[in-house]
């Protein structure tokens, strides 16, 4: 886990005069799963294509497998990597012939091609599709076959560009399991792009948040999710309670609510973040947590297995609680108490 398999120095990409990826520096360790999360149009896909050497680099250096990517080395290096795209690509031929493609590009003998294709389809539980037309598959099936087409070439690094963005939840889960399996069994280094922050959390050892062509924050999933570097990252990783506040008498305060002690901050503007699921809600007012505040229910909306309750306690708090059939109903206008532990509050200076 210690060896850097990809190193990027000052990597940038421009289309015409517009720079879409700005001078990136980072490295990826062998065997790691790194997720690049960020909104659409952040430059994630362009970055991926550059890393897979199918998109020319405008500026900077790219070192893969310890070797600098040049026109001469590109083809050999690319042969040890694979990439899966958001849009499923199926060529107008049978599934087996689709899966075989990368092997025939590598001039591997027909006999070995046939063996490896049937082996991979077998392993992935896709054998029944072998003789079907590539274009006759459903979205989920097509994407799994596309994944098989990449894996059959035995890549050491896999680039997955929004691989589940067009799939239904069940197909997404199946593909995610295949991705994790590939990483665990074959120790394949995986870099995955996703605009789904939860997917990043499910799969990745490390997350890079990419916005407007740069990495805003890179770190372990928990760090990114619970300690977002700024308000934009916070919003993107799903922090629903973000308030601008001040430090008063050594405490973080906003809208008259005291959130937590903030001894490390000078008096002045701060941003306070609190995840909706870290807040507890009670009708009785007796709560164990350290900080609490009384409030009035503004709205309560059911979303699947959860209730999303908005409470006015000086600031508008969004609270997520499990929905119970036996009825934990919150009616607008009802008086409630909200509470949270001190350590779940994330405070940053306003300027960052």
């Amino acid at each position: 886990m210690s060896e850097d398999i990809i190193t990027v120095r000052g990597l940038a990409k421009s289309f015409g005069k517009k720079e879409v990826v700005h001078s990136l520096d980072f490295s990826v360790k062998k065997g790691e799963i790194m997720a690049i999360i960020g909104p659409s149009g952040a430059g994630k896909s362009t970055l991926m294509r550059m890393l897979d050497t199918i998109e020319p680099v405008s500026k900077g250096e790219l070192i893969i497998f310890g070797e600098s990517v040049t026109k001469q080395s590109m083809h050999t290096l690319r042969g040890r990597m694979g990439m899966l795209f958001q849009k499923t690509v199926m060529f107008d031929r049978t599934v087996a012939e689709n899966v075989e493609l990368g092997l025939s590009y590598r001039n591997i003998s027909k006999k070995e091609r046939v063996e490896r294709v049937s082996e991979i389809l077998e392993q992935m539980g896709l054998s029944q599709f072998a003789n079907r037309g590539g274009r006759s598959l459903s979205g989920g099936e097509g994407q799994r076959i596309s994944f098989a087409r990449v894996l059959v070439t035995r890549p050491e690094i896999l680039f997955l560009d929004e691989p589940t963005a067009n799939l239904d939840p069940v197909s997404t889960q199946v593909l995610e399991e295949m991705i994790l399996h590939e990483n665990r069994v074959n120790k394949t280094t995986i870099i995955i792009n996703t605009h789904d922050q939860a997917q990043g959390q499910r799969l990745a050892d490390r997350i890079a948040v990419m916005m407007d062509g740069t990495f805003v924050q890179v770190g372990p999933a928990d760090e990114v999710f619970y300690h977002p570097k700024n308000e934009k990252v916070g919003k993107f990783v799903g922090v629903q309670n973000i308030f601008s506040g001040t430090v008063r008498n050594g405490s973080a305060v906003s809208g008259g609510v005291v959130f937590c002690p903030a001894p490390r901050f000078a008096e002045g503007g701060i941003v306070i973040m609190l995840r909706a699921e870290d807040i507890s809600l009670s009708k009785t007012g007796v709560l164990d947590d350290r900080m609490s505040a009384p409030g009035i229910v503004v709205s309560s909306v059911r979303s699947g297995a959860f209730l999303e309750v908005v409470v006015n306690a000086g600031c508008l708090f969004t609270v997520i609680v499990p929905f119970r059939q036996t009825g934990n109903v919150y009616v607008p206008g009802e008086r409630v108490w909200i509470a949270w532990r001190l350590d779940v509050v994330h405070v940053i200076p306003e300027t960052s």
Partner: protein
Amino acid sequence: MGEITDGFIEAVTLIVTLNPEILEIAARSLYVSIAATLVAALFAIPLGAIIYYYDFRGKRAVINLVQTLYALPTVIVGLLVYLLVSYSGPLGFLNLLYTTNAMIIAQVVLVSPLIVGFTVAGLSGLDKEMKYTTMALNARAYRGLLTLVREAKFAILSAVVLAFGRAIAEVGAVMMVGGNIRHFTRTLTTAITLNTSMGEFATSIALGIILLTIALIVNFGVNILQNYNGRVKDE
């Protein structure tokens, strides 16, 4: 009116009795245009594929130029090829003027832009992820292009058929470089021009019917191919 009806009846007679001269002219027309289309396709499809595949400075301008050449006037092509193959021209030593080979050259020049342009368009109609996939699977450029051309085969084939349609229907270029010499370089279109100016309407109509039939078959072929193309995309 009588002249036209009589001409029409005589024309049908000429066709059903398999008049040797009419057949010879029709066969020559087919030979010249099929040969020209095949030769053009042989280099225009790869050229179109290369233009599509690589990003280079001025690519847009090249594509615009090719598209402008779709409407290349046939007489201009005739003039160009005439100057090229005439006895004092750069290819004069090959003695091509007034031969079917000169006519083939002229039609190749005429229809190549069409095939180049429609090949670029057909390939550009594929999802860009398709090209990325061939690249990511580590295909050398020519292998990747073969895969992609195969995917766009219906679009490209219909371009070839269209090119054949333009070739067989044109008169200006073949007239100028072929000379409309009986038994040597006379084609359907040049024969119609000549016979009409001589008042031989029956022959003109007979040749016209044949030409029209070929055009209909071509059009039918294009329609089938484009339908097929549409179906493949929808799946």
